[in-house]
């Protein structure tokens, strides 16, 4: 990866991030191995943009998001964040006081709107809590601020004294967004924010996230498994496989000109909403590698239809093959991979 320390447009830069969870066995909880959930991940996010992080379950995308917010300490690696007040800091190394100040500027939106809200707290408590904790507002001022936040996310201010159970999934997700917005953060990590929602509600929330981004100049790290949703919302996309980023590029480029065989397979696997274009997807052999016992060389090689001997022995590095287009594949330049075909105009509605 190139050096981004001097580039003021980079809000977040992650370098060689690792999280290995110990596997403990036996009476004395001896560590017998490690699940390499995140295994050397590097990426950056520019201010005001959305970076989509996609991959299948267990690829480490959620863990990456949580590491960025220091919900848990990483095993290794650096997370550089350009904080509004404190300047450029390495998140894993900051002390408690600095971390608390940092947290005002980094927030999270969760997948499950049913379990991420405390059922015993009213909307006022939920959305107002970060304001109280950080001593930003209290009393009447707090109420005003919460009312404003509810309006911003499209909820009626009269709902302030109600409890989460009175709301639908889409409304709950709006509550979670209002809470995340309360402290006027710079970065929001969105972890599958729409995957539990119905199609019509999903569109409402995606539109809301886009409006808020414009209004408050937010930066999103958008973690999701749905490639269509990620394409829609992201400026750039990074694809993860077994704890590593295998490819990242500006969205249109990644979708039309993938350079990694895994990206190609993922894109081909999505059922296309066009009955006149019935496609036979690339069916990958076998299953996703076990992150406790990853294969040798390139982790994708046992399932890759383009593998050569080199892939079995040598781990490919993530390298920039075109501006902003990073791939970790030995054969990135020579392979002619198939991307997504442009949508039929009649269906673009």
């Amino acid at each position, binding site marked *: 990866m190139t050096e981004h320390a001097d580039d003021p447009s980079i809000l977040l830069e992650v370098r060689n991030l690792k999280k290995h969870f110990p596997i403990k066995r036996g009476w004395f909880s001896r560590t017998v191995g490690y699940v390499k959930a995140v295994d050397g991940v590097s990426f950056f996010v520019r201010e005001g943009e959305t970076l989509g992080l996609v991959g299948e379950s267990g690829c480490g995308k959620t863990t990456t998001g949580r590491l960025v917010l220091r919900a848990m300490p990483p095993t290794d690696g650096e997370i550089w964040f350009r904080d509004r007040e404190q300047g450029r800091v390495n998140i894993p190394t900051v002390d408690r006081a600095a971390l608390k100040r940092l947290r005002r500027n980094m927030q999270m939106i969760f997948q499950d709107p049913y379990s991420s809200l405390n059922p015993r707290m009213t909307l006022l408590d939920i959305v107002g809590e970060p304001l109280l904790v950080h001593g930003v507002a209290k009393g009447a001022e707090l109420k005003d601020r919460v009312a404003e936040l509810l309006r911003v996310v499209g909820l009626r201010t009269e709902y302030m004294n109600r409890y989460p159970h009175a709301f639908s999934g889409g409304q709950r997700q709006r509550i979670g967004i209002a809470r995340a917005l309360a402290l006027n953060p710079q970065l929001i990590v969105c972890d599958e924010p729409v995957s539990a929602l119905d199609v019509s509600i999903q*569109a409402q929330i995606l539109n809301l996230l886009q409006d808020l981004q414009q209004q408050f100049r937010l930066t999103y790290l958008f973690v999701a498994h749905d490639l269509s949703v990620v394409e829609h919302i992201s400026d750039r996309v990074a694809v993860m496989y077994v704890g590593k980023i295998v490819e990242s590029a500006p969205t249109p480029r990644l979708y039309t000109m993938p350079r990694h065989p895994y990206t190609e397979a993922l894109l081909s696997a999505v059922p*296309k909403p066009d009955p006149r274009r019935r496609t036979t997807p690339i069916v990958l052999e076998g299953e996703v590698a076990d992150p406790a016992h990853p294969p040798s060389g390139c982790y994708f090689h046992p399932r890759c239809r383009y593998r050569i001997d080199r892939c079995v022995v040598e781990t490919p590095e993530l390298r920039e093959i075109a501006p902003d287009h990073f791939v970790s594949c030995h054969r990135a330049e020579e392979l002619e991979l198939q991307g*997504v075909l*442009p949508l039929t105009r009649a269906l673009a509605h």
Partner: protein
Amino acid sequence: MTDTRPLLLEVEDLKTYFYLDEGVVRAVDGVSFTIRRGQTVGVVGESGCGKSITARSIMQIVRPPGRIVSGSIRFHRAPPSNGNPGEVIEITKLDPMGKPMRMIRGGEISMVFQEPMTSLSPVHTVGDQIMEAIMLHQSVSKEEARRLAIHMFSKVGMQQPARTVDRYPHQLSGGMRQRAMIAMALSCTPSLLIADEPTTALDVTTEAQILQLMRDLQRELGMAIMFITHNLGVVAQMTEVVMVMYMGRIVETATVDDLFYAPKHPYTRLLLKAIPKLGSKAMGTATRLESIKGTVPHPYAIPRGCPFHPRCGDMIPGVCDAVEPPVVNVSDTQTVRCHLYQSAPSRDVIPLTPQSAAKVEH
């Protein structure tokens, strides 16, 4: 283009209600459709629209306080080879626990569920579970059942089928469990397979494998599939005919091509506009998604007239909020339940813009 394949299932004015303390939930409220032999029918709709309860009604596995209130479900057995007409069974008349229904369920009509872990017993091996199904419906010995089970496992693409049959569900991955479910559902060569969100819990590459498997097996075994899903991509790739459900009713029925290229019902049109489509950014058409305003109304308080009118952009005041829309045949293969398409409209209400709707008002 009329379909000449023989009828397999006729559902007529089916109503399945749930009687709760808070009130009656009309989960399925007058649903009619047919499925022909070997046909793939898609059922789409958002959560709570009644698509799963329709399927459960066909299987007679609706749990109390829900029950089938009225309507008929006629299942046409294959005609015997002696030339006599095939038997027609009225499923709603059968005792859900009785032997005739148990022979149909899992034998002639079987079902695959979204979450394989909840439909497989965790304390029996997958092999024992599929053998149980085989021995229940076919008079074969245990050894023969095991042989058939292994045969089915290899058919659904299980690696090392002879070893996998002795595994417990928790030892298998999500995709393998779903393959085991499909193997079990197809072990008695049903004439109708009901697949209720069979790939929703799976990763996209596993989903592609399972969908491919279902296509291959259908080509080989010729069963009809009723495919319930909320994923319009899966609908486009897998089905021939699609029914769109909203609040317990079918609002539109169309061939899959018409559904995507000539959708009629405002709800169908909005649904299609609300999904992010793969490749739209590449084409430069990615803009804002169209969202359907509001939420699905509470099932205790179904709106008067057309249940969709509070969320509909083409709502005609005084008509849609007062009169229940009739089912209109727009073509031989497309029906829509909407006032906008009535053949003899009382007022000129054909165009589909809010302005024209407003004009009608005056």
